[in-house]
């Protein structure tokens, strides 16, 4: 077993320098995960301000300008600070252990890609303290609101986005290099855990679209400071061009945030159903199809900009097609549970909630694809409900499921199952009370990104806010669970979960600082 290979002379350095200079994939994974959790709480605080202001009609707590800053910062921090780094953290911890590699392929770059992030977010958040205020043009920062009409702090925002992009690009290069070059003998591509597969695909998506994001913010920078008119109609520019370029990044970005989640769920459900994942091959092909389709559907975010009908039809049909591979995934997970031997520990609860609630987000996504209906849904709370259903009980629940599932491997202790279940149920109830009524609000005609609303929207808004506060507060339980688990708890076995399969479960818990310095026994590598 690998424990025999563990060399105790090369343990971690002591003190702060361990974290500053580390090139160890486990340390960097831990850094990413803590950073992500901190950003999750920060972005969550912004969301609490939004829900508190929307608790009742009228302006009570914040002025509309600050409200716009909150919606913008909430989106940016959650997307770029919470969800994406969490998945990179999971990738760092798990991919080397899953494929039997000693570390990531490019460990120094790994350190750098993490340490860029705190600076990027410090810069972005510092705008809140400046006179001109934080960016207030929405996380989609449509020009010319974000250029000609932007607060001066837009330059900080642009630089921060550049840094985040650089970090993501380096992270994805590292993952691609690791997966393609460092698999243990016997770990063929079609034996890789789905988490590795989905991350490999995600990394290619990141490589393809992060430069596009960098391009669009650079064009903004030129419009703001150097007198160009990329997006300024008065100078011959084209505001719609901004949206095309942004969403060419933005739509694959959506899948960047969900594909690794598919990988996590595909690991957890088989474990707790004690049954092999149904249709492994089709899962791989479905992930690849979703990634391909993500590049040809971007303008479904722009059905109301006045595209020619041929464009509207193309993007409608292409978008509807995504339902096919996504459906395959949901059916496969269901078939994995069918005739299994299930238990319902916290990771499984989050995984099942993921499948159900993500599917509901998928249904509303299908509805939004229907162009004429989208004319009514677009830019309303129906859209807000849709993307929060796929992102919160989707991506975020999968991250939480992953945290509970692998925490014993990371810390060497079992987490507190009672607290974990409490956290799950509070989150599950909270999230549905929070977001389900927003479907009704949107259908009844409430636009998104408004600090105040007409009286007929009052009831569902306070219900939604109550759900929001409940969901927000219950995340503190997770913090308690994590700290308790690090400090102690029942000793975890190497296997941890009865049904767990894969190389990471052949290592002792906690996983030694250096693992697989020699390749694992090929006999330990099973078909998925």
């Amino acid at each position, binding site marked *: 077993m690998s424990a025999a290979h563990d060399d105790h002379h090369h343990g971690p350095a002591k003190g702060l320098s361990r974290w500053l200079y580390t090139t160890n994939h486990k340390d960097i994974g831990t850094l990413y995960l803590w950073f992500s959790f901190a950003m999750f709480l920060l972005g969550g605080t912004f969301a609490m301000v939004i829900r508190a202001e929307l608790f009742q009609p009228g302006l009570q707590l914040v002025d509309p300008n600050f409200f716009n800053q909150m919606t913008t910062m909430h989106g940016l921090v959650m997307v770029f600070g919470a969800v994406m780094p969490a998945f990179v953290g999971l990738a760092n911890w798990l991919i080397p252990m899953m494929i039997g590699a000693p570390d990531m392929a490019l460990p120094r770059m790994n350190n750098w890609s993490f340490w860029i992030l705190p600076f990027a977010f410090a810069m972005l958040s510092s705008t809140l303290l400046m006179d001109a205020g934080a960016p207030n043009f929405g996380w989609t920062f449509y020009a010319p*609101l974000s250029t000609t009409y932007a607060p001066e702090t837009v330059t900080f925002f642009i630089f921060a986005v550049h840094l985040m992009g650089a970090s993501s690009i380096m992270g994805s290069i590292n993952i691609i290099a690791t997966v393609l070059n460092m698999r243990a003998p016997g770990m063929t591509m079609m034996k890789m855990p789905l988490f590795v597969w989905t991350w490999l695909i995600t990394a290619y998506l990141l490589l393809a679209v992060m430069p596009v994001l960098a391009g669009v913010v650079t064009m903004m920078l030129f419009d703001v400071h150097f007198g160009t008119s990329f997006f300024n109609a008065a100078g011959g520019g084209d505001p719609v061009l901004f949206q095309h370029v942004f969403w060419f990044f933005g739509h694959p970005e959506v899948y960047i945030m969900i594909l690794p989640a598919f990988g996590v769920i595909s690991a957890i459900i088989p474990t707790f159903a004690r049954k092999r994942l149904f249709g492994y091959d089709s899962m791989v092909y479905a992930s690849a199809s979703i990634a391909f389709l993500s590049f040809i559907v971007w303008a479904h975010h722009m059905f109301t900009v006045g595209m020619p009908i041929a464009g509207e039809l193309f993007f409608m049909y292409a978008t509807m097609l995504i339902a096919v591979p996504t459906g395959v995934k949901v059916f496969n997970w269901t078939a994995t549970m069918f005739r299994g031997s299930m238990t319902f520990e916290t990771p499984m609860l989050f995984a099942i909630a993921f499948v159900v609630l993500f*599917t509901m987000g998928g249904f509303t996504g299908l509805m939004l694809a229907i162009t*004429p209906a989208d004319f*009514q849904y677009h830019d309303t709370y129906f859209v807000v409900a849709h993307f929060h259903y796929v992102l919160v009980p989707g991506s975020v629940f999968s991250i939480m499921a992953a945290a509970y599932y692998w925490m014993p491997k990371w810390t060497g202790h079992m987490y507190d199952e009672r607290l974990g279940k409490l956290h799950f149920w509070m989150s599950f109830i909270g999230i549905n009370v929070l977001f389900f009524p927003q479907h*009704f609000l949107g259908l009844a005609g409430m636009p998104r990104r408004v600090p105040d609303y007409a009286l007929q929207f009052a009831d569902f808004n306070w219900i939604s806010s109550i759900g929001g506060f409940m969901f927000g507060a219950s995340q503190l339980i997770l913090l308690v669970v994590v700290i308790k688990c690090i400090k102690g708890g029942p000793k975890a076995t190497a296997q941890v979960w009865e049904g767990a399969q894969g190389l990471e479960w052949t290592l002792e818990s906690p996983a030694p600082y250096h693992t697989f310095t020699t390749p694992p026994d090929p006999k330990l590598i099973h078909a998925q």
Partner: protein
Amino acid sequence: MLPKAKLWLGLVVAALMTLSTNLQAAWELNMTRGVTQISRDTYDLHMQILWWCVAIGVVVFGVMLWSIINHRKSKGAVAAAFHESTKVEILWTVIPFIILILMAIPATRVLTEAYDSSESDLDIQVTGYQWRWEYRYLREDANEEEVAFYSILSTPRDQINNDLPKEEHYLLEVDKPLVIPVNKKVRFLVTSNDVIHAWWMPAFAVKKDAIPGFINEAWTIVEEPGIYRGQCAELCGLDHGFMPIVVHAVPQEEYDAWYAGQQQAAAATRAAANNVVTLSAALEQGEEIYNRICIACHQANGTGLPPAFPALAGSAVVNGDVEANIRLVINGVPGTAMAAYGRQLNPVELSAIITYIRNSFGNSTGDLVQPADVNTILQEAQ
């Protein structure tokens, strides 16, 4: 759940229910069917897709729930060994594909109809501004008096700031609604003067982005007379939540009478450009306009929201040269939210608002600006 927890939950729910009763609220759950053929078609499409989704959900979640109940280890379930089946995989790829085609056919039909904006009876140019709408009725004959006006939120700020009780159409009411005839094909030419807005009228199923440099087309045939309310749907800055849309759909005769009245009023306004006004009248009119238009950025007490929206109280411009002040209001400040009001207000209104700000918020220049003063500068600007 523990009985104690249930009790607590009940108490919380009861408390919240009581809290909500003092608000006039409706439990509206679904999309409006609207009052046009397209809006009804859209609604039907929406319901059709919703039911497909419900049906698929019932099957998938049903299987899942059944497995969760019956295939649990605690019940002694033993895991089966199967993990693939090409037949099943093909089946659940092909069936959804067929369902998608069934959805796409009616969607394509409705979209094609909605996109046919040819042969209109009436064309109206809709221009978005931060944060108001301008409606300009296009004329057949350029010598005719033009009907064009701005439509601005009329809910008093005191209601928004919770100093007065909110009334029935809170945030969905404007000073001058758009008026259109029923049963006529009205075409909207939608554009913007600054940032992107979106003109959305749920009852007509019309939502079109108003984009600077572009003119987008939308159209409607309203079948029932009535007052219809909508809002700007695209984030457009500070007061995005406060630029509603109200449309009065009226019978043709009523529309004709209204239109003629508007033409007369436009002629009268032009004639009034050389009237001499008194200080008290100017202050009164100026205050009314300030509270309607300027207040969002410059605030009730003239302190603004610096640095984006400067203070008027103690401002160098407002307390300085009158002519420079008039020019600034007429031409706006490019690249900021300060619009060129020379296009939006008439000389009487412009002179009143400038008189008002120069004699309020602690500013006391004592200046009385006459419409003629403004008119001179307006003329030279043209």
